[in-house]
């Protein structure tokens, strides 16, 4: 298989580059390889789109404070503050 064909066929490598691009920097060669692949592969274009959406959703999920959904119970909190007060009084 020729070099160009290999790039066009290799979705595994293309998705690797898509992920690398999202959090890091691609080399010049990698940028060209990804572009060539995406020109002819609508499946990886779709993967790229979905991958970006997933990142945004995960970030949203983590950053939202979602008040009331994840909470400590009051008795644990009371004990915890008492523990802190006890430590403070030691000094």
């Amino acid at each position: 298989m020729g070099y160009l064909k290999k790039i066009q066929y290799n979705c595994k490598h293309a998705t690797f580059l898509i992920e690398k691009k999202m959090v890091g920097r691609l080399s010049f060669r990698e940028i060209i390889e990804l572009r060539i692949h995406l020109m002819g592969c609508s499946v990886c274009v779709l993967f790229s789109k979905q991958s970006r959406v997933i990142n945004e959703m995960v970030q949203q999920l983590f950053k939202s404070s979602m008040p009331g959904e994840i909470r400590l119970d009051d008795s644990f909190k009371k004990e915890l503050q008492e523990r802190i007060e006890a430590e403070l009084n030691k000094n």
Partner: protein
Amino acid sequence: MSAESYQLNPHQWVNAHADYLYAFAIRRINNEELSKDLVQETFLAALEKAAKFEGKSSERTWLTAILKNKIIDVYRKKSSGLSKEVKQAEHEQQDFFEADGHWRAEYRPLEFGIEHIDPLINKEFNTILQMCMEKLPALWMAVFSMKHIDGEETTVICTELKVSASNFWVIIHRAKLNLRACLQKNWG
């Protein structure tokens, strides 16, 4: 407000920050008891370090930084079988692709309406997203969340979690392939 104006008020710590820290921990390690322990350890460690607080960041930011270090310790302990996990990851990668790198038919991405979902409004999708993240091996989740959510430098993550640079990229790639496939399977 000047940069040195932040102060600590331990008498209000639990009221002001305990739920926030607990939620921060539980999203990253997915274990209620352990998260409770970490919140407590964070406050106690903070008391010991209080004299060194310079007031350059807010109380919450400072407490969160202490908690982050404790979470990384948990990641480290969990990922002791680390090299084995990565080898398995490389092996399983074959499942998604044919030998020549083509998508295998059953894993090929399809449109499943993900662009039109707001996970904060759509509770059902939210639950599936969380379930899919919980399925990832602990080390992958650690790498994934440190990079995508906390925006840590790659070199920092590699050092903290004792992962080589090439394994880092394998994990980033593999984690996303898994997460996407899981969402398509359970939502699409």
